[in-house]
């Protein structure tokens, strides 16, 4: 067992979410590396912020409740009336 991970190893474990699944020893190794290495610390922070930013963007551009309702009723339309099965949603309208 070695105490020091290389930067490449540390970054791989962080970017692939291995950190999250790691045991105590491996976590300690990664955290120890980050404690010593500013570049890797910066890299880890960028990845974390990247996730936060994309999450925020996705929530900001969330479809309007009214759009969702319309879509929902389109989808559910096939359910309520027994005459029109869910197949109707797929049927291409004839000209």
């Amino acid at each position: 067992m070695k105490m020091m991970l290389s930067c490449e190893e540390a970054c791989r474990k962080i970017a692939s979410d291995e950190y999250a699944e790691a045991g105590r020893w491996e976590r300690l190794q990664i955290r120890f590396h980050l404690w010593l290495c500013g570049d890797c610390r910066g890299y880890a922070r960028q990845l974390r912020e990247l996730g936060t930013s994309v999450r925020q963007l996705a929530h900001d551009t969330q479809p309007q409740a009214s759009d969702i309702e319309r879509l929902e009723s389109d989808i559910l339309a096939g359910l309520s009336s027994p005459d029109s099965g869910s197949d109707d949603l797929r049927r291409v309208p004839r000209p």
Partner: protein
Amino acid sequence: MPSSYSGELSPSVKSAARKHRSDSFGDAAFVERLRAGDEQATRAVVTTYLPQIVRTARGAGFSPSQADDVAQATFVTFLEVVSRFEGRSHVRTFLFGILYRKIAEARRGLGRDRRADAIDEVMEDRFAPDGQWLKAPRPIDLRVHDAEVRQKIGECLESVPVAQKMAFLLREVEELETAEICKILEVSRTNLGVLLYRARNRLRECLESQGVRG
């Protein structure tokens, strides 16, 4: 070690550990109602997951109207096959699995995930043979309130192949657990790690190359 390091790495993983909002959807009785075509149960599923499905389709690079179509197609397929749903996975897992296949179908040929990926070489070139940084990461612009930055993030996301993008979105935006994402994408944990590694680095590299203004 400064205490601020704890939790610095993966807040999304922590929140992924949150329990499903719709725990009752996993009940055998609920699954049975779904399979039988019970309207109320079906409505509950559509109402609960439609926003997430649309959001993920948009995140995958579809325009709002395309994303609506993809979401609708996902639920149509869901309604068609739900009678065969055995409830061995959560209904959300089942639904996202359908969505993933719809997205992959629509995007076929645009970016299949190959075994070797150009991003791997880009990353190798960043490190010396002993694993130390050769080219340390430069700053990236993530000021999401800036319209130009928002657009760049969107463009960079667009350049990520489908499976990688889905892995990234399900982890970071939908905050699903590892095991569930593996089921949705039908990949092993190791494989999911590779997808996330590539997605994150591809995005980071793309944004780094854009630089930071002002």
